[in-house]
């Protein structure tokens, strides 16, 4: 795995997809490829309450990525220092093997360049000390990014608060 952790506090997500627009804006992508995507399931009634799940799907940046192993040209790579999986466009021949190989559909097709494109945690931004585009603009700050140790224990804290009987 990469040393980073992108945590979605789904309780706060409103499925607005600002993350998707920010991602495409940062990468200057055409209509089509979605390097990250909110998948909405529902709403459905659970008892009297309508509930929906808004699941954020970027690339997981695997330890042993299917896409890297499958790529015939070496375009798909894993950055040694932090484990970010990215595609070097100049080496990509557009064969789509990475798209076939990835179990989660992370690599996308860029119809403008005829090459694969995927989430690289905005490594250009990370290298400037910034957060990924999606995390930076997330409307409700439900996306968190850092090394795994840096992510705050949001769920534990919320649970503890709900359980505390101090009031």
């Amino acid at each position, binding site marked *: 795995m990469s040393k980073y952790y992108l945590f979605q506090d789904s309780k706060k997500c409103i499925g607005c*997809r*600002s993350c*998707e*627009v920010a991602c495409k804006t940062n990468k200057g992508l055409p209509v089509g490829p979605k390097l990250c995507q909110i998948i909405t399931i529902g709403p459905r009634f659970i008892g009297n*309450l309508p509930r929906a799940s808004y699941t954020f799907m970027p690339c997981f940046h695997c330890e042993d990525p299917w896409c890297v192993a499958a790529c015939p040209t070496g375009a798909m790579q894993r950055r040694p220092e932090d484990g970010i999986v990215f595609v070097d466009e100049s080496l990509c021949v557009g064969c789509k093997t990475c798209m076939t190989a990835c179990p989660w559909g992370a690599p996308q097709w860029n119809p403008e360049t005829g090459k694969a494109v995927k989430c690289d945690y905005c490594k250009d931004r990370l290298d400037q000390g910034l957060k990924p585009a999606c995390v*930076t*603009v997330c*409307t409700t700050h439900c996306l968190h990014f850092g090394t795994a140790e840096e992510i705050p224990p949001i769920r534990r804290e919320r649970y503890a608060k709900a359980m505390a009987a101090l009031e």
Partner: protein
Amino acid sequence: MQKEVYSICFGCSVRCPIRVVVEDDRVKWLEGNPHVAGMEGSLCPRGMAGIALLYDHERVQSPMIRTGPRGSGKWKKASWDEALNFVADRLRKIINEYGGHSVVLGERTQLSTHVSKTFLRAIGSPNHFTHDAICKGSVNTAGRSLFGYTDAQMNFDYANTKHIVMYGRNLFEAIEVKAVNNLMKALDNGAKLTYIDPRVTVTATKASRYLMIRPGTDLALNYALMHVIIKERLYDLDFIDRWAQGFSELKSFVQQYTPEWAEKETGIPAHEIISLARELGQDKPSVIFHFGYRGAHHTNEIYMRRSILMLNALMGSIEAKGGLFIKKGPGEVGGKPARKLTEQDLPEVKQVRFDKVGTNDFPLPDPNHGVGQILPYAILEEDPYPIKALFAYRFDPLMSIPDTNQTKKALDKLDLIVSIEINYSDIAWYSDVILPESMFLERMDSIQQANGLKPQMFLRHQAVTPRYDTRPGPIILKQIAERLGLEKYFPYNTMEDLVRWQLEGTGFYLEDFKEKGFVAYTDKQIFWDRKDGIKFKTPSGKIEFVSSLLENAGFKSFPAYESMPSPPEGEFRLTVGRCAAHTHVSTQNNPYLNELVPENHLWINTKEAEKLGIKTGDLVEVSSEVGSGFIKAYVTDLIHPEAVFMLHGFGHEAAFATRSFNKGLNDSVLIKNITDRIGGSPAFHDTFVKVKRA
């Protein structure tokens, strides 16, 4: 070289503060202003798609003059001089022949609205209107009738609330970034969210209580809530004693409206209404009954919005932490607001307005905004006088005023239609001349006077030079005025000049906005003392349950509730709304936003759809008394059987906007143009439609 520019978004009318990163005159990045609490980088998709709009080649790229019939799409490119001369020549003729009052300008309220108003006054016309009445005129009037403040002069302390009640106020899809984050914070701290809507929205999926109300009966629910609150003495006794006028009249009025009665009208079980009232009683005064953003549903809209405000009053939530507050202006701390061009010595205009607002015919709507949906009637009936020219300033009468077919007939009577627009909107497409405005990243704008708990001023800085041959609206209007010999009312040559003129005497300077995009008059939140310090602006200085505003104009404060009719067999009540990806009628052609939501669908209840043999994805024909059209169906349990729903803002007719052209259905084609004659809002949800498979 990279630089950062602090500015103001205009992805929608919320106008969130933003930070723009610019390199070599290109926008590289956009985010919420990190210096503003509640923003901290956040931006909604409509704002984030601003860069896609900036570089969109489907914007209006230069002035255009029509060469074929209206709406035919035959245009010639024009220089600014040519287009401005064209407009000025025709305008001069019209003013000479029919008077300045034959010219109407409609716009979406914006930072430079004071410039448009000045333009009209200068040419001798009273006929400025904003989109506001069409969205929420009755909320404005309701606020003035009870507190002496318009809805725009009030806001909510979301972050500290213990319980918020929203009536179709779909905050998590409409998205005001700061409000969303403050409410999320409250919810995280255990606040309750009661959401009432005939349709399940994203907001409903975050609610702690969801009530699928029979469409149009929210007023009945509120009268029953008041009934329980008063009967069980759940209200804030001290607050009502001190501040309310007409409580005993309210008390005897709601006596008849029991929860059992309301159950029959609304479909919400009586015990739910009682338990909601009791919970709210416990959480008071940190409760919010949200008076809504759009408040334009039924012809009794004013009473619905008044009932919401009265519930806030009963809970004592006004000026309470976690309640409703009145926005504080710079005067509260001895500061001065930015000047407006309308403060100049402008010519008196004596004619009545085209919509007759301010006369006995239509006494109560806010003349600052007018009532725009009256325009087609005024033109067609030449009542009170003939209208000859329309300026549509980023306002689209064809999609925003109900009954598009009627509006088209009215527009056909005009001698001149000028659009000041960024996109090929339907009204731009139907105009004689399009004067393209620079989009929000390309122009400086007038000062934003941001009143609130802490009065501030924000500035929209220009981030980059215009990509195409476009100009800021206040420059366009000044350049028309110059050609009419009226330049003296426009004391500026550039937007910077105008802003400097506005700031004179405030103690702040243009340069002060550079570092963070805003200046603050104080760093402390101002709440008025709930015992003695609330400055209600009603004639009595109190909350007027019995309203002098209404009664003096001959209207009742407490008219008996009239049952909301169910649609006849085989028909449905048409309801409309919006989603997170689009702003009204203006973003459907944005490449990224179009990708998110390219067209609208007709939501219809599963059982009703079964009877009609309609399945999700089927093309259906929807028809009303005034129009019909085709749209794909979405069959779902998530909507009340009496209602169907569609997103507003689709079905565009402007062919140059290729992504939105002919996608989905324009709700305004179906909706009848009827109005709450007291409050001023149109009634968007008072049209029944038939649905059948196409």
